[in-house]
């Protein structure tokens, strides 16, 4: 469900997103899917389900971070990923089902290619959310 009409303030959105993260993490086997993401304290539970090989993702992610040092703060990175996701499918941000979030992220990434919302990372044309996901992997 695309929620373009919803106007959340950035501050309110961040609070909601972080709250949902905490909720999701608390329902999950921490040893399996919760790690340390930069200085967020905890990584989103869906991250492990959406990224491929962690090392390969991290190599791409580090290149993205080099061009976007503001994202060395993982919480900002997570918030921006979730904000983009909320515009595409708000409920996917707040669900406790990581697979649902993953599916929504996959669709979001495809939509970003359709809309031309891309960035070059080491020459690869990547959707912005996809590049941020790799950056998040680099912060683990």
């Amino acid at each position, binding site marked *: 469900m695309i929620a373009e009409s919803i106007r959340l303030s950035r501050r309110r959105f961040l609070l909601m997103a972080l709250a949902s993260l905490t909720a999701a993490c608390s329902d999950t086997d921490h040893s399996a899917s919760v790690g340390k993401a930069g200085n967020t304290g905890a990584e989103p539970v869906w991250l492990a389900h959406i990224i491929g090989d962690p090392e390969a993702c991290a190599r*791409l992610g580090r290149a993205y971070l080099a061009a976007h040092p503001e994202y060395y703060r993982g919480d900002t990175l997570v918030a921006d990923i979730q904000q983009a996701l909320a515009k595409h499918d708000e409920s996917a941000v707040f669900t406790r089902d990581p697979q649902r979030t993953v599916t929504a992220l996959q669709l979001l990434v*495809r939509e970003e290619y*359709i809309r031309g919302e891309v960035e*070059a990372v080491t020459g690869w044309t990547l959707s912005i959310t996809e590049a941020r996901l790799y950056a998040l992997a680099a912060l683990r």
Partner: protein
Amino acid sequence: MFTDARNLPDHTTLEADLAIIGGGVAGITLARALAGNKTRVCVIESGGLEFDPQVQSLYEGENTGIDYSTTLTRMRFFGGSSNHWGGYCRPLDPIDFETRDWVPFSGWPFAFDELVPWYQPAAEIVQIAPGHFDDSRYWQQQTGEPIPEPATGRLRLQFVHFSPPTHFGSRYRDELKAAANIQVLLNANVTNITAAENGGSVKQLAIRTLNGLNQSVKARYYVLATGGLENARVLLLSNDVVKAGLGNHNDQVGRYFMEHPHLSGFADIVAGDLVRLPKIFRERVTVEGRPAQVAFNPAQAFLREQQLLNATFMVGVAGIYQAGTLAGSGDSNAQARRDMLLAARRFLSDEGKTTDPNTLGVWLGVGGSCEQAPNPDSRVSLSDQRDALELPRLKLDWRLTEQDRLSFYANLRSLALEFGALGIGRMRETVTDPRDWPQPVAGGSHHMGTTRMSNDPSRGVVDRNCKVHDVENLYVAGSSVFPTSGSANPTLTLVALTLRLAEHLKDRFR
């Protein structure tokens, strides 16, 4: 009947109703279209039935622009350049015929629809299946594989057909030999199209052989069909009456030379799972004995919206990455492709698992060919150097513009977005400096534009019927009459145009 001009007595004059200068794709197509009727046709071919390096060397020329071989990109013997043709066939796109305000000197004197009736018989001549050039549903039914429709609105799928390829000389030689109204004169070089005193008509053709004989051909009508470079050269050489060259009152002959800049090695695509990449996207698929493959072509609405030139991209498997190995390790490009496949696996395959568990994905090479905007400074003229017949050689100054380059990059970006949007793959550009072309640009042996068609004599050499402006009995056949090039390979269109010209000439002879 085939005659070797070297065996005719010196100063022989042959007479015909129609003299066709050049026995290549256009010349043979035109002669065949007139075979069996009352019109006496004489086809005058510089070469013989086989390749001869001495004849081929008449094609040597001077090059002052982008590095370009004037000998390797064409063939001078019966059958012409079809003797080394790759066989790619696709009609031009409707937008290619339009006057586009962002493309200088664009616009044909007629619309795409005018050529449509001629594409089908042209397809038969080049031995390809008729139609279905943009019909995904047909190819889906024929191949049994789902064919995804482009998602971005930027690209569309075109289905390139492949001719065997037809070598016109060997394919149609016997047919012409059997036609009572056709004489093919071999080893005969037209050195001058001799005009009447006022330059308004052609009186005869002066012919010289490499063994030193001089002959002539007189006809009611003449068609110049020697290829996109030589057509301009022959007109410029024919300057005994009109000093600037026949048909060149307005300094148009030889200008607007266009190629299809061909590029490769400028981008990599990795695809995660071949299930998402139909075979016809990546290789030739044969249906009922006729091979075809997808070409990615900009959507016409997108070209209008973004004011771009046309382009064609095709992809093919360049390598396969096996799961669990480090193939290519040490090669940074291979490592980059492998990393991308590993990183994006959940975007490029269902549940992050490839259908073949032993395969991580494939590396696709990308080839591109693009339209260049007509440019009067990109041109053919005469050199000070002389050939074995003591005629000035051709001087070629092929030029590209910033518009050509920027358009290519914009279209390339569409390809990257489309593969991402379809969840098929990721593309990496290896271009380091967008202010330059990605590599030394090559041509596709497509010579176009040098005797361009226009209703306005100040903007072109021939009119909508391919008749030279102000010369009542001289026509030009071949891709030299294309006012714009599109991005499709030109052979199918030049055959269609020649069939259209044949119909026009039949009317003249009635």
